[in-house]
């Protein structure tokens, strides 16, 4: 079959950051899915609130000390996250490794504190519907934190043990994007689980 060479792409780059690249779209796709789940879970929280007179029903409010400290730490983690993302986007492998390592360590601390947050809820998941949605909402987020921390650790190992290709720099950048997603949802979930019972 004869064909006519109309466009030549040999000189095009072999990778791209952000929405130009395919990985970004996959990541954002999953963020939309997980985000939809958070939105629905939050709607369920308020739906259940409307079903009873007192909130929490027959239970004390959660303690906010550890959760607030954890939130502060996670907001601070945006700085190393931003530095990690920038390092990746300027192909700075040592810089990316450093800040990713810092981020991973902070993530582990976040996880430990998150474990303690469960003890501050002052309820057990089976006590009533409020307790159930509180535990599940928190756990949905915890699963994301845990998978991202493990993800970051593996990525850190990968960029430490193998040559850092262009593709890997894109992965590093998208990893930081996902951490921003986790931080962004941390805020409303903290507000709803730890502060809303005092306000509603």
């Amino acid at each position, binding site marked *: 079959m004869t*064909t006519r060479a*109309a466009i030549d792409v040999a000189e095009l780059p072999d990778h791209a950051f952000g929405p130009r690249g*395919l990985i970004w779209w996959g990541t954002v796709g999953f963020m*939309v899915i997980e985000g939809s789940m958070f939105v*629905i879970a939050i709607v*369920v929280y308020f739906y*259940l609130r409307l079903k009873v007179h007192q909130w929490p029903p027959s239970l004390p409010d959660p303690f906010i000390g550890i959760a607030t400290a954890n939130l502060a730490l996670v907001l601070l983690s945006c700085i190393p996250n931003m530095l990690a993302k920038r390092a990746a986007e300027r192909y700075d492998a040592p810089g990316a490794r450093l800040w990713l390592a810092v981020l991973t360590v902070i993530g582990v601390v976040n996880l430990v504190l998150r474990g303690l947050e469960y003890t501050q809820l002052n309820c057990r*998941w089976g006590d009533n519907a409020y307790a159930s*949605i509180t535990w599940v909402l928190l756990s949905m987020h915890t699963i994301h934190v845990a998978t991202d921390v493990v993800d970051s650790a593996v990525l850190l190992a990968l960029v430490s043990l193998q040559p850092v290709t262009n*593709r890997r720099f894109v992965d590093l950048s998208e990893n930081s994007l996902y951490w921003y997603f986790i931080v962004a949802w941390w805020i409303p979930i903290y507000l709803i689980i730890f502060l809303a019972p005092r306000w509603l």
Partner: protein
Amino acid sequence: MTDEALHRQLADTWYNPAGLVGRLSIVDHKVIARRYIVTAFTFFSIAGVLAALMRLQLAFPDNHFLTADQYNQFFTVHGTAMMFLFAVPVMEAMGVYLVPIMIGTRAIAFPRLNAYSYYVYLFGGVMLFTALFVNSGPDVGWFSYVPLAGPDFGPGKRPDFWAQLITFTEVAGLAVAVELAATILKTRAPGMTVSRIPLFVWAMLVMAFMVIFAMPSVVLSSTFLLLDRLVGTQFYNPAEGGDALLWQHLFWFFGHPEVYIIFVPALGMVSSIIATFTGRPIFGYPAMVSSLVATGFIGFGLWVHHMFATGLPQLGLTYFTAASMIISIPSGVQIFCWIVSLWRGQPRYATPLLFVLGFVAIFVLGGLTGVTLASTPFDLQVHDTYYVVAHFHYVLLGGAVFPLIGGVYFWFPKMTGRMLDERLGKWNFWIFFIGFNTTFFPQHLLGLHGMPRRVYTYPASSGWGTLNLISTAGAMLLAMGGLLLLFNVLRSVRRGAVAPADPWGGEGLEWTVPSPPPAYNFLHVPVVEGRSGNWDRRGNEAPPVVTGIKADCREVLITTVTAAEADHKTIYPDPSIWPFLCSVVTSAFFIGSIFTPWALPVAIPPLAITLIGWFWPKRSDRSTQCDLANNRLEPLRGEA
């Protein structure tokens, strides 16, 4: 390089491994899609047998062919399997097969995820039918209302198998949706601007977005149910602040879009078939695209029409009545445009077009009974009766299965390299058409005469016997139609006429590649200049193509979202056994967690290992070597 040499190199690069481990490592979208389609039709057949058995039980009043328990398991598994294991997966699978070829690319985005999703889907289906065969099949209906499905009234594990099946199929479905969306938005051939995207591909894009926004709701609701049953949460327990209606809201917020998720791809198939068999592009492309998108959006605003009898406030109900009627407008626009297309084209009555005409006759009737159901007062008489059963079979079989079978006849040559028998096809159509109407039309009357849904028997004094007998006779005819299709497929796969690249004079790019296509789809990635990838080439001696894509790497061209300008290239992953291994661990975890919450901590280490195996670059993988070779750290285009 000659075409022959190029073919050899591309075939070598994009190879599909052989052997047991090899075949479980394949990431070719066409192979995965064919597996999906075959598996989905297998589940369809089993679910169809269940329906035939149910119809035999209902043929006579006070019948004892099935026990109540068998009947209740059968109607539940029939509905569950049809909706979750057949309808959505087969539509997604047609997209997985056709979309990359229709848009001029070599593969689907995230190919390993695609393989993983198939195995997860397969294991979920096997779990459900195994549960049924050991008399532990779910028995509370395909939408599993609480409290009947909850811990107090559903002892044993029957509803848990249902709820976990949801998890399996939603994981698979969501994964494919993300792949399709990314593929369609970022990997179209250069020149395929947004206004040149084929209508089938538009339909798949709308479906993918609907899946992404709808499925989370059912994932949550079924998880809440599993938690209520397994660890004692109180989501649906009114005694502890929970709510039985919460289930219905969460389920139907997903459940209504679900039927459009099934229906919208079929609309894409209808467009492809009508265009080809009238010889002209579909009339009214902008209206057609807007209708697909509008259907997708409006579909999210209807769900309460499943709950008109629950005593919700009147003002809300009025809104849902209006919305449920309004959604027929975009569908109407499509029907009008198709009729115009048939009007101004030259119809050729091949089997695919017959099934499309059957679709119009059946779906429009179903849509109209849907409009009647949207009216709250009228719904209060026919809700939960055989009127509704008739309605949804008209819209689902008419609106989705008829186009699908037309699509099977249409694309079977492309997928297998053989033609299905045309004469058998015509018999197939008429037997289905007559069988379908005989089965389901009487059910409208049964509902109006007071026969509720989900009754394993009815008394002779009801007077429902005659209509039920007619309906059963129709079901037997339908079953024969199914067998005929199966026979046609099995015979044609081996002895059908060999199919050329373009047996029908088809409109799109898929008809420019061999039947079946090689693993790499296109010898040369095309440059698109119009909406009809195949017809636009007519009279063109040397169609324009892209050069500069590596043939010794799985290199894929990434283009911009709206204008489809060539932007950069990326390397797709090699075949790998890790997605399969990960699916085994995932499935074991899902099934284990039906029985114990300890399944979660136990599953985490193997899940982590298989995921790391999946993503960790292997030195022996060609894609790893290609990545390393690319490591030139050149600046991005547009920068200094």
